[in-house]
């Protein structure tokens, strides 16, 4: 059995009085696309930050490819540089991640911090802009971009390092249908690169396209795990975790009624 990319054991994380993760245990196998499902506030984004070594749990252990992932180890450049090179996180809010004055500078930020030679940085950034079809934006300030363009730039700024593990926090959030569809197509395409992709979402419509396996969260606890098909069949579980809701709607016959059925929450 291959060593998991991430192994989370009995992790508890609190923001002051609020428990975001509560004795959570799970393992993410290499080369798999995994979805972390849960309503708002269920702890998905916190877990991503912990997996990326940006936050550290008060209790429990995390390993990355069999090695402990701790704050002390991330102080050591011998561990930190390869880790940052191998693991990339795309934040939900692109404005957080787009802090450089221009799109080109933004995409170049990661390679420069990892001290790649400048000529290599220039060439790789140009190539990545081309791949993401954003070359025409390279001299623009992130402030002037649409949300869809910002998302593509954030993805480019992480993919430029060619990470083995990609952590995506709500990649289709706040996107219009066309931009969301382009993003999903891109995520489907990523699978060919044999990357491990961990995506947080509460959009059940895209689940089967972007994941081979899923973990379902509720108030910081893992309540279910399985393939997308297995999870989507458990209507009562999805209702209980606020991923679907019974709502009134009108059928073509004009009859108005309510019953629970699959609809992802879109925000």
């Amino acid at each position, binding site marked *: 059995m291959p060593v998991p990319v991430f192994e989370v054991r009995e992790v508890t994380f609190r923001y002051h009085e609020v428990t975001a993760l509560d004795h959570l245990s799970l393992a993410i196998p290499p080369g798999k696309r995994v979805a972390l499902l849960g309503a708002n506030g269920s702890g998905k984004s916190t877990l991503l930050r912990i997996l990326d070594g940006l936050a550290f749990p008060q209790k429990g252990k995390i390993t990355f490819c069999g090695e402990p992932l701790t704050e002390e180890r991330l102080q050591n450049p011998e561990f930190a540089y390869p880790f940052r090179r191998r693991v*990339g*996180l795309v934040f939900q809010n692109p404005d*957080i991640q787009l*802090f450089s004055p*221009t799109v*080109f500078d933004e995409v170049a930020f990661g390679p420069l911090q990892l001290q790649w030679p400048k000529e290599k940085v220039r060439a790789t950034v140009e190539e990545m802009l081309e791949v993401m079809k954003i070359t025409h934006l390279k001299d623009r300030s992130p402030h002037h971009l649409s949300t869809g363009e910002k998302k593509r730039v954030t993805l480019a700024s992480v993919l430029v390092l060619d990470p083995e593990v990609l952590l995506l926090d709500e990649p289709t959030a706040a996107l219009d249908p066309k931009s969301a569809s382009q993003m999903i197509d891109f995520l489907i395409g990523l699978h060919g690169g044999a990357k491990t992709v961990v995506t947080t979402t509460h959009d059940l419509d895209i689940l089967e396209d972007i994941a081979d396996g899923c973990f379902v969260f509720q108030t910081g606890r893992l309540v279910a795990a399985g393939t997308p098909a297995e999870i989507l069949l458990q209507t009562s579980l999805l209702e209980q975790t606020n991923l679907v809701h019974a709502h009134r709607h009108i059928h073509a016959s004009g009859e108005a009624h309510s019953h629970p059925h699959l609809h992802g929450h879109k925000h």
Partner: protein
Amino acid sequence: MNFLERTLTSFLNAMEHALDAEALAKADGLLQRVDPRTKVIGILTLIIAAATAHKLWVIGAVFAIALALAVCSRISPLLLARRVWIPVLLFAGIIALPAPFAIPGRVVWRLPGLGWALTAQGLLSARYLVTRVETAATLSVLLILSTPWTRVLKALRVLRVPVVVVVILGMAYRYIFLLLESARDMLESRRSRMVGELRGSDRRRLAAASVGVLMSKTLQLSGDVYSAMLARGFRGEVYMLDDFRTAALDWIMLSLFAGIVAAAFYYGR
């Protein structure tokens, strides 16, 4: 409109001016084609030459050169008048106002009633101040209007400004827009739920609360941005990519700037 809203409107106007400036910086003009480093060095030395010249006609000549550069760079003198000359005249004029009365010399006129003496030396001194400030401000604005701000910042590296300062200024420029938008949204959402006028004390309370919320958002944002930087390998040291290219025009312009500055220093002694 209360003080806070007026301030915010001014900031948003400034933001629009910044966006206009970026559009102008992309125009096909003389200065727009010159490398930002050449412009920073050339314009800075011209400002020093104008500031140290002891002859009015030399300062006037540097001002005329600035005007010619503006026209060649498709920057309208009307725009300069509106954005620079009139505000600077008011600002520098107020500062220069006491000089004609305070500096002793040959009396040319007396203020009726008060009898204060207006001296020729004082008038000359005020003229020096105003023309120097107008020339320096015109040159500075030419640099900003013909160069995207981000490239101006990068070009500061040629003056040995530390990378970390350049990066912090760049980030500040990036996020000031975001925070201004956030502040505008807050005010608009408040306005949309208000009917009638608030009392002065309530307005002050609301203003203080808005500033507090914005401060809190700023702190949150700075923490998140720092996390995003860490996630991409930031470890306290900042690295930058200079993507400047020097062309023949830059050498020509550099020689031109050097010639003008040398002449201004020589004749302005």
